[in-house]
C-alpha cells in the first residue's frame, strides 16, 4: 500500500485530539511527572511532555498492562459468577517514537504464536498508533543498528514528522490511520513537498547486526565473556520492564472468601526466581547465565523462531540500568570480537 502524505498543521493537533475524544477514544500520550515521562491519558495536546528523547516506560502497558486481570469471579453462596474481561476502550497512542511503534510487531508475534492471546489482541485491535519521528537522538539510541530508523513508518498507523515550520508531515500508513483521517479530513491538508529525511535525527549505525547474529551461537559456551559482562549486573528487572519488546509474564492467583482473580504481571528473565523449579533446581543459577539468556534470547533465539530480532534499539535499558550495564556496548563487543 502506498503511503499517503498529508500536512497536519501544528495548531490542528489540539483539534485532532478533540475529534478523537468526541469519537469516544481515550488518548494516551507522553506526560511529564517530575523528571520522568509516562504514557498517560490526556485530554489536550498541551498536557504532553516536550523536548525529550524517550519516555521512561514504554507504551507496551497500553496493550500488555503491568497488572491485568485474566479472569475475575465472585462467590455468592454456592454460586460462582465469572466476570468476563471488559471490552478495552478504543485508544489512540500518540507520540510514540518509531522504535516503540516497531515493538508492537514483536509483542504481537509472541501473543499470536502458539496461542491467540485474546486479551492482548483485543487491546491491539482497539488501539491506533500515531507516531512521531525523532528529531533528536542520544548516545543510547541504536535503532539503525537493528533495522529501524528515526523516521520509520513500521508499526505506526499515522507517522508525524515535524517540519521547520512546526507543522507536521503526516504519513497515513494503514487503514486504521485512514479511519482517523476520516474523523477530521479538514485537518489533513495537502502534502508539503519537503524532504522528510532532513528533519530526522542522525543515528549512526553502531554495530553490524549480521556479525552479531553470526557470532552469538558460538559465543554461548564462552563463559568468561558472559561472566565479565555481567559482573556488575544486579539482577533486577528494570531492563525487561522498561523494554517495549519484552513480553515475559507471570500469572498470580489472588482469592478470598468473596471471590478472586487471576492476574497477569510483567516478569523478567533477570530474576533468579525466573527459572527456579519446584524441586529447587535452577538451570540458570548465576547472573552470568541470566545475562547470556537475555542477550541470546533477544538477538538469536527470537530470530530463529520469529524471523526478526526482539529489540528495537530504543536504549531505555541502558539509560535506566542502575548498574550501567549498557547493552549497546556489549552488543558491539560481541559483534566486533574476532
Amino acid at each position, binding site marked *: 500500500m502506498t503511503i499517503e502524505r498529508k500536512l497536519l498543521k501544528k495548531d490542528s493537533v489540539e483539534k485532532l485530539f478533540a475529534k478523537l475524544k468526541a469519537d469516544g477514544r481515550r488518548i494516551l500520550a507522553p506526560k511529564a511527572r517530575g523528571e520522568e515521562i509516562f504514557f498517560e491519558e490526556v485530554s489536550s495536546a498541551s498536557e504532553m511532555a516536550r523536548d525529550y528523547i524517550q519516555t521512561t516506560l514504554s507504551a507496551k502497558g497500553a496493550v500488555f*498492562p503491568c*497488572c*491485568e*486481570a485474566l479472569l475475575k469471579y465472585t462467590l455468592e453462596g454456592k454460586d460462582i459468577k465469572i466476570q468476563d474481561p471488559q471490552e478495552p476502550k478504543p485508544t489512540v497512542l500518540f507520540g510514540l517514537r518509531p522504535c516503540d511503534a516497531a515493538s508492537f510487531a514483536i509483542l504481537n508475534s509472541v501473543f499470536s504464536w502458539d496461542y491467540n492471546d485474546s486479551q492482548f489482541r483485543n487491546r491491539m485491535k482497539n488501539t491506533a498508533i500515531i507516531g512521531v519521528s525523532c528529531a533528536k537522538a542520544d548516545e543510547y539510541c541504536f535503532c539503525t543498528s537493528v533495522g529501524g530508523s528515526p523516521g520509520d513508518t513500521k508499526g505506526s498507523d499515522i507517522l508525524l514528522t515535524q517540519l521547520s515550520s512546526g507543522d507536521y508531515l503526516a504519513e497515513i500508513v494503514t487503514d486504521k490511520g485512514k479511519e482517523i483521517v476520516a474523523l477530521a479530513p479538514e485537518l489533513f491538508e495537502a502534502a508539503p513537498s519537503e524532504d522528510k529525511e532532513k528533519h530526522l535525527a542522525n543515528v549512526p549505525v553502531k554495530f553490524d547486526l549480521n556479525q552479531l547474529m553470526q557470532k552469538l551461537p558460538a559465543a554461548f559456551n564462552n563463559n568468561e565473556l558472559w561472566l565479565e559482562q555481567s559482573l556488575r549486573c544486579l539482577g533486577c528487572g528494570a531492563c525487561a520492564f522498561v523494554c517495549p519488546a519484552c513480553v515475559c509474564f507471570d500469572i498470580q492467583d489472588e482469592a*478470598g472468601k468473596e471471590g478472586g*482473580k487471576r*492476574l497477569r504481571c510483567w516478569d523478567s528473565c533477570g530474576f533468579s526466581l525466573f527459572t527456579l523449579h519446584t524441586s529447587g533446581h535452577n538451570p540458570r543459577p548465576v547472573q552470568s547465565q541470566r545475562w547470556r539468556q537475555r542477550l541470546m534470547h533477544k538477538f538469536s533465539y527470537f530470530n530463529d523462531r520469529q524471523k526478526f530480532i526482539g529489540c528495537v534499539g530504543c536504549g531505555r535499558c541502558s539509560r535506566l540500568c542502575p548498574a550501567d550495564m549498557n547493552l549497546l556496548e556489549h552488543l558491539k563487543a560481541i559483534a566486533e570480537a574476532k
Partner: protein
Amino acid sequence: MAEFEPKIVAFVCNWCTYAGADLTGTSRIKYASNVRMIRLPCTGRIDFMLLLKAFEQGADGVIVSGCHPNDCHYTAGNFHARRRWIIFRSFLDFLGIDTRRVHFAWVSAAEGAKWAEFVNSVTEEVTKLGPYENYQKMAQAGVE
C-alpha cells in the same frame, strides 16, 4: 438508614488480653460488639503486616493488645513488640495511613473492665471516623 457499625479487628495475646476479655464476658459486662478477636501467643509474634492485612480485608479499625511490660508470659515478647510499634506507627503516619484507626493497649488477665472500656472507646472513635474507604478502595485499585 442503618447506622455505621465499624469492623474492628483485635490482635491480642493469649495469656493476658485474651484472658482479660474472657473475664469481661464472665463478669457479664456489656460492651460494643464490633470487635473480631484474633488470638496469638504473644504480641511479640504480631507481624506489622497483619495490621495492614486487616485493613485490606475490610477492617475499619485495628486493636493490638497484650501483657503489661514485665508481665509477658514469654518474658520479653511485649518489649520487642513495643519497639516495633513505636517505629511502625510513626512510619504509618509518614505514609498518611490513618493512625487514629490503630490502637494499642496493655490489658492484663485481671483487667476485664479495662478491656470493655478500651473497646468501647475505640469503637466510638472509629465510628466517628467512618468506614476506612480510602484504604479499601486502594486495595482494589491498579488492576486493568
